[in-house]
């Protein structure tokens, strides 16, 4: 009985091969340097899609292209195609606000606004719909519970968010992103500025969140990728070297570079 209960969700995930975001022929150039070269990759629904690769390989650039937050950077040139639920993200009359409502983002360093904890949680959502005081409290409670921060902050919702620890702030940022009700959550090294314990809390949170959300996670931490990812994408020097199931990439990769990187965290992509 117990075994069955455990098995089912795993089987569920394995069977889920629905892609939600598809990138194809995607290029990004900053000034003269080409940062993303002909990227073609898919992200799977309700899975933890993990992008790994050495520093400067373009992981953040790819992630930030998905919600188009890179736009407005000086001298940036973007071409290619990213589709989200079969609609072109770079389509001509795409409403960026609606796009970012669907695709939330969590940054490397927690960025809380100089407001109270409560105001931080509802900061995004209150720009999309009018909320009464009671509704705000309700949303705050739901989302803070979702990131398991509620017990820690329920008595101090009106205190400044800056008074929280960095790990708590990061969870607050996740709650803030969740409150907008996205279907995808982009996370750029969300645990890299946290201590090991807080990192584990967030990892567990991600495993929990993937039941409802698609997670695209950038991480430097190979052990972390091994622990929580379902789908793995290995990038190096602006190219996707290999992508596929976590087990496959860890146990039996097609490319020698993938093997070296996952084993030694070293990469020489020109091999």
């Amino acid at each position, binding site marked *: 009985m117990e075994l069955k209960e455990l098995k089912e969700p795993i089987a569920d995930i394995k069977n889920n091969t629905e892609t939600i975001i598809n990138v194809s022929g995607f290029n990004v150039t900053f000034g003269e340097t080409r940062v993303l070269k002909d990227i073609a990759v898919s992200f799977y629904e309700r899975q933890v899609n993990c992008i790994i690769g050495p520093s400067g390989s373009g992981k953040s650039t790819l992630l930030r292209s998905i919600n188009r937050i890179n736009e407005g950077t000086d001298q940036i040139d973007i071409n290619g195609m990213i589709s989200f639920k079969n609609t072109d993200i770079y389509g001509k009359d795409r409403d960026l606000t609606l796009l970012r409502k669907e695709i939330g983002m969590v940054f490397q*360093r927690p960025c809380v606004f*100089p407001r109270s904890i409560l105001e931080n949680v509802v900061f995004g959502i209150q720009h999309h719909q009018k909320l009464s005081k009671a509704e705000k409290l309700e949303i705050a409670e739901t989302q803070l519970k979702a990131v398991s921060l509620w017990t820690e902050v329920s008595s101090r919702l009106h205190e400044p968010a800056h008074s929280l620890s960095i790990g708590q702030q990061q969870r607050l940022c996740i709650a803030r*992103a969740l409150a*907008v009700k996205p279907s995808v959550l982009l996370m750029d090294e969300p645990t890299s500025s946290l201590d090991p314990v807080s990192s584990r809390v967030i990892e567990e949170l991600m495993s929990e969140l993937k039941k409802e959300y698609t997670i695209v996670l950038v991480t430097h931490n190979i052990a972390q990728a091994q622990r929580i990812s379902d789908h793995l994408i290995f990038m190096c020097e602006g190219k996707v070297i290999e992508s596929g199931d976590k087990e496959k990439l860890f146990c039996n990769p097609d490319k020698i570079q993938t093997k070296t990187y996952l084993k030694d965290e070293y990469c020489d992509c020109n091999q």
Partner: protein
Amino acid sequence: MLVSYNKIGKGYIMLSTYISMLIALLIFIVLFINSFDAISQVGLKLFTLEWNPSKNEYGILSMLYGTLSVTVIALTIAIPLGIGTAIFTSEILPSAYRIYVKSIIELLAGIPSIIYGLIGIAFFSTWIASFFELASGRTILTAGILLSIMILPTIVTLSDDAINNVPKKYREAAKGLGLYPFEVIKNTVLPIAKKDITGAILLALGRALGETMAVMLLIGSIDKIPTPFYNVLSPGQTITSKLGREIGESAFGSLHFSALNTMGFVLMLLVIILTLITQLYLRKSNRLYE
């Protein structure tokens, strides 16, 4: 060695702080001492309308009114215009052009006030006169408008810096939550920059209260509160223009001289009180933050 360097550094900083504090205090004391005769002899009659040194009447109310009304007009025009411009230069203008636009605006800040005054007399007051069909274009409104142009660069460049100094991460976080660009500016950037923008406005306020030359040339120099009092299309007089005109003809140590000093003292009190109020307000409204 490091320790002694530290001590020297600390001593230097303390000394310069004390020196500037001392200078401010000295100015205050000297002004007060020089005002003492007028305060003790004229007393509450200082706050009347008649200023007539030959009859020993020293009422400063008209000048006080002039100073306040000119400043209010200048700020009413310059604050929205200046902050709007600052939002444009820092948020909307591509950063490659920002530096040029800013340099031009900063150039305006460097123009001596007498030049503003001359331009004001040559064009501005005649425009006002013909537009409102007045006998003379030298009015409180004319001075106020010119003053607003003079303080505009201060507000623009300092607010632009304030907005530009708001870290990019806040904008990205807000954008990432799906806020529209103007919501990002209004609800994320401006609240964070508010304190520094207020500082910019305070500095501009100080300049507006203290500006002498241009105002003196344009305000008409009549010691009267217009009737009705809000009719700013009449000539007036500010504390500074009065001082500029009369301080040379008053004998040092006379009651006239002392009364003029009293006006200076009042002006300084005004600046200090306004600064304190703003700071108090800022501290209160910021209690939740940081």
